[in-house]
């Protein structure tokens, strides 16, 4: 299977729907361990992404992802804006001039992860969205084509596991041990991103 520019638009629309309907949930999670704006920020950003993608016609996956990245970068703010912006920009750059087949796409996601780590000066196990992106990508490497159910489950499990981690990056790190027991908001929004990707794939089959 190969993703098209149209698939990217579907992916982002689905992500947006999930984020809009879970805006308050994300904000509550961020109120518990951060400053309570994650839902508001992500909702503002993805709403704009959908507007942008609907207003433009795309030839390539890379172009659609680039606009997604730039819109997130300029509309989300906070920690999540540069992080998601970087992730999608790296994916876009990696796919430039290439088809979005499984191998290329997965390579692109690896670039995204590297970008996240560099931008956030962080790594796995620090209770950030990296704890969803990294295991999802690891799991994808074991497969050789898109697998919606694998994606969903890995993302979901990884998100759940952030509960047990003690935060050492981002605002939640101020809580120290008290961060344990709470989901990481960025990991939850990342779960929506991958769940939406899974549904896009399913729809595309």
């Amino acid at each position, binding site marked *: 299977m190969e993703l098209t520019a149209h698939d990217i638009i579907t992916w982002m629309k689905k992500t947006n729907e999930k984020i809009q309907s879970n805006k308050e949930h994300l904000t509550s999670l961020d109120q518990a361990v951060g400053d309570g*704006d994650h839902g508001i920020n992500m909702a503002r950003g993805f709403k704009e992404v959908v507007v942008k993608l609907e207003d433009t016609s795309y030839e390539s996956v890379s172009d659609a992802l680039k606009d997604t990245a730039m819109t997130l970068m300029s509309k989300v703010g906070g920690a999540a804006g540069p992080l998601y912006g970087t992730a999608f920009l790296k994916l876009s750059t990696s796919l430039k001039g290439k088809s979005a087949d499984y191998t290329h796409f997965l390579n692109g996601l690896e670039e995204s992860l590297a970008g996240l780590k560099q931008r956030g000066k962080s790594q796995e196990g620090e209770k950030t969205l990296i704890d969803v992106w990294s295991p999802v990508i690891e799991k994808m490497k074991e497969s050789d084509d898109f697998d919606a159910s694998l994606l969903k489950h890995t993302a979901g499990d990884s998100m759940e596991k952030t509960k047990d981690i003690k935060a050492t990056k981002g605002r939640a790190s101020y809580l120290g041990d008290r961060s344990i027991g709470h989901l990481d908001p960025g990991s939850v929004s990342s779960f929506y991103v991958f769940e939406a990707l899974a549904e896009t794939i399913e729809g595309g089959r």
Partner: protein
Amino acid sequence: MKKIVNNPEYVVRDMLEGLIAAHPDSLKQIPETTVVASKDAPLQNKVGIVSGGGSGHEPAHAGYIGDGMLDAAVCGEMFTSPTPDQVFEGIKAADGGAGVFLVIKNYTGDVMNFDMAAELAEAEGIEVEKIVVNDDVAVEDSSFTTGRRGIAGTIFVHKIAGAKAAAGGSLQEVKNIAEKVTANVRSMGVALTPCTVPAAGKPSFVLEDDEMEIGIGIHGEPGIERKRVTSADEIAEELTNKVLEDIEFNTGDDVALIVNGMGATPEMELYILNKKVNEILLERGLNIHKTFVGNYMTSLEMSGCSVTLLKLDEEMKPLLDAESSAPAFRI
């Protein structure tokens, strides 16, 4: 949630319009941005000073724009760091050819967004330097956190870096003095009540009727300890001693002090606190060069306060005392 707002999504936009309307002679908004700049920015051959961060901390940061302080302030959404493109607009607005200095508070989002903006600026040939302010002693400064937060001590960085730039200092000189201020400034706060981000609609945390949170962050981030509200004198001791412990102060040292209100605490209470803070500092043999009591770095309608101490030297003193026309920090 009771607030004087219209659509909660547009609070920052509305605020900026009201701000410019109130200061038409000294401030301008860069069109289609959330950047506020001095009316006469950029000043040719002066290092531009740019600060910013999430909104909700007023008068930070736009209130510190003025001769001898900031050239531009970049206003993010509520408690949300502004985006790189906006910070880049702020840099351009302040760039008079001598480079631009960024004052950043140590939060992951601020650091990332300002860094990316600096990259954009450098790509366009604007020289950029920066300082990351981390004065909040409530946070352990270890590899297990993102480091100390930047709170009210930032105002002293604005003031002294701004004065250095106004006096013709080079970008490197401005950076050097900002680093010195940051190395010598410490703060700690306390909250008696939480605050509510308009679009969130509910408070960021809950305190019982008799509780306060020592070491609170300016976005409601958790502090060191939650305990029963004590007297002004005890609160003053707790905050001041924690600050005093953190760097070496010697008898006869000159210090500058900010007793900062978090937003909803009456000035009367800040002065009551200041009484005791003064006593403690004098007992310690310190020389209080200047005291600032008021709302300088707020958290919406949070009630509470913070104490900031800056250990001064002969280089910083005249820069702190230099004139400033910033409405929130007229000297």
